[in-house]
C-alpha cells in the first residue's frame, strides 16, 4: 500500500510540463515576430501556450511537493510504516480526487 506515497504522480507531470513550458515559451519569446507565426494566424502560440503549460506545471509541482512533505515528516519513520502514515495516505487519496 506504499506506492501512492512513494511517488506522487503530480511531481513527474509537473516536472514535464514545467520543462516543456520553459522550452516552448522561451522559444516563443526568442522568435517573437518571426514570419513562421503566419502559419498560426499571427498568434505567437509558442509563447502563450508555453506560459500556460509552465503555470500548470508549477501548480502541479507545488501540490505534489506539499503532499510529499506531509507524508514524510523529516524526523519520522517512512510514512507507510506507521498507522498515522497509512491514515494520511487514505486522506490523500480522497484529496487527490478533488484536484
Amino acid at each position, binding site marked *: 500500500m506504499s506506492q501512492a506515497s512513494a511517488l506522487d504522480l503530480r511531481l*513527474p507531470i509537473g516536472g514535464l510540463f514545467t520543462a516543456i513550458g520553459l522550452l516552448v515559451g522561451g*522559444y516563443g519569446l526568442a522568435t517573437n515576430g518571426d514570419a513562421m507565426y503566419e502559419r498560426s494566424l499571427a498568434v505567437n*502560440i509558442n509563447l502563450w501556450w508555453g506560459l500556460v503549460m509552465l503555470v500548470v506545471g508549477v501548480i502541479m509541482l507545488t501540490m505534489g511537493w506539499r503532499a510529499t512533505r506531509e507524508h514524510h515528516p523529516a524526523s519520522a519513520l517512512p510514512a507507510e510504516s506507521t498507522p498515522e502514515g497509512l491514515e494520511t495516505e487514505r486522506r490523500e487519496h480522497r484529496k487527490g480526487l478533488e484536484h
Partner: protein
Amino acid sequence: MDSLRMAHLAPIDYAIMAVYFAAVLVVGWLLRRLMRTSTDFFLSGRSLPPWVTGLAFISANLGAQEVLGMGASGAKYGIATSHFYWVGAIPAMVFVGLFMMPFYYGSRARSVPEYLKLRFDEKTRTLNAVSFAVMTVFSSGISMYALGKLLNLLLGWSFDVSIFASALIVLAYVTLGGLTSAIYNEVLQFFLIVFGFLPLVYLGLKAVGGWSGLSTQLAAVSAARGFPADAYTHAWRTMGDASQNPIGVEWFGLVMGLGFVLSFGYWCTDFLVVQRAMAADSMTAARRTPLIAALPKMFFPFLVILPGMIALVLGGAHAGGQGLIPAKIDASGHTVLDYDLATPMLLIRLFPTGMLGLGLTALLASFMSGMAGNVTAFNTVWTYDIYQAHIRKGASDAHYLWMGRVATVAGIVLAIAAAYVANAFNNIMDMLQLVFAFVNAPLFATFFLGMFWRRSTGHGAFWGLLSGTLGAAVHHGLTLPAGGSIGIKGGYLGILHTYPSELAQTFWTAITAWTTCMVVTIIVSLLTRPRPDEELKGLVYALTPRPRDTERHFWQRPVTLGVIVLVMTLMLNFVFF
C-alpha cells in the same frame, strides 16, 4: 524519401520529444523498487487512487489509432462521429462502474478471464484469454505499423527506427515498473495529449471562423456529397433515414449496434480498460474509475473529431484532395481521400516550430499509452490465465513476477513482428481485425448472463460464445456494404442484403452475434446442470450483497457520479442534436 517529407523539425522540436522520453523513463525507474510481488507488477498492489486509475482508464484506450481514426471519421462523417463517445462509450462506462465492477473487483479475480473461470469454468476462461492475448498483440502491432508509416510520411523517419525506438521505450518503463508505471505514464500521456491538441482546435476554429464558419462551409461539403446541409454539424437530425447521413445507418442500428452491443462489449468486458479499475485501492474507487473517466471522455469529440472536420474545409488542397486532406490510390485502384492524414495535416498546417514538436510528441504519447495498455493487459492474461493455469501451476510468486517481465518482452517482440506482417500483407491485418470483431461482438451477452442470471452455466457460456462468433461470420458472409466487392467486405456465402455503408454492416453483424450468443447460452444453460448457489456468492447479482458506499459525501458516491455523467452526456446530445 527525403524529398517527400511534409514537415521539418528543428532542434527545439527534438528537445521537447527528448524531455518527454526522459520523463516516462524516469517514472519507470522510480517505480522499479516497488515491484516486489506479482500483485504489485500486474495489479499495482490494488493501491491507486481513483483519479489516477480513471485517467489511465481512458488514456489506455486513447491510442494513436483512436486519435488519428477519430480525426479521419470526423472528416468522413462530421459531428455524428461523436456517437462513438456519447452513445458508444459513456452509457457503457456508467454501467460497468455501477453494476459490473462489484463483481470484477469484489470477486478478487486478477483478470477478466479469471472472472469467467470463477463464474463459469476453465474452458470459457481459456477461450477468452487466448483470443484476448492474440488480439492485444496484433492490435499493438497494427498501431505500431500505422505510427511507423505516419512518421515516415510526415518526417521522413525510417520505419524501422520509429518502430524500434518507441517499442523500446515502452518496454523499458513497463518492465521496470509494471502496471503502476504504465498507469502513471498513461496519466502523464493523457495530460500531454490534451495540452497538445487543445491549441490545435483553438487555432483550427479560429482559421475557419469559429463553429458558425465551420457549419457554413461544411454545409456546402454536405450538399456536394448528396446529404442535407446540416448532416455534418448535427449528430441526430439526419439519423431517421440511413440514406440521409454520411454514416449510412438509421438510429436503431446505431443505438443497438454501436450503443449497446459493441460499446458494452468493449467497455464492460475488455481487460485492457477493466485492468485499470482493478488497480484501484478500494471497491468505491474501482467503481468510480470508469465514471471519473467518463467526465473528460464526453468532451473528447471536441479534441479529436473537430480537427478532422476542420481539415476538410481548410484551404490548401493537393491535387485530387479536399481541404487539407490529400488523395491516395486505394487497393482497387480508385482515387480516394486519405482521411487518416486529416489530423496530422492540420497539425503541420497550423503549428509553428516548437508547437509542432509538442503536437507530434502528443501523437507519440497517444501511441505509447495505447501500446503500454495492450502490453500490460497481455502480460497479465498470459501469466495468470494461460501460463499459471495450464503450463506451470503452483510456482512461487517470484517466478510469476519473473514470467510477467518475460511476457512483457515477448509481447513487444511479437507486436513488432505483427507490425512487419502488416507492412508486408495489408489484407491479412484487415482480415484479423474482422475476426476480432467476430470474437468480441458476443462477449457482452456472456458477461451479462453470467452476472445477472444465476442459472447460466459454463457449457452455456462456452457454446454461446462460439456460436456468437459463428453467427457474426455468417451474417457478414451473407451481406455486403454498398459498392463493396465480395471477399474481405463480406458476401462470401452469397448476398442476401446490401447495407448502405460498412459501418451499418458492422453494427448489424454485432447485433446478430450478440443475439445468437444470448439465445444459445440460454438454451444450453437450461439443458445443463447449474452450479449450486453456494459457489456463486460474490459472482452473481442476486447472490451478492449490494456494495455499500463508504464515502461521507453524497457527491462522491458512484451512483451520484453516474447520474451526473449521464445527464451531462444527454445535454451534449441536445446541444448538437
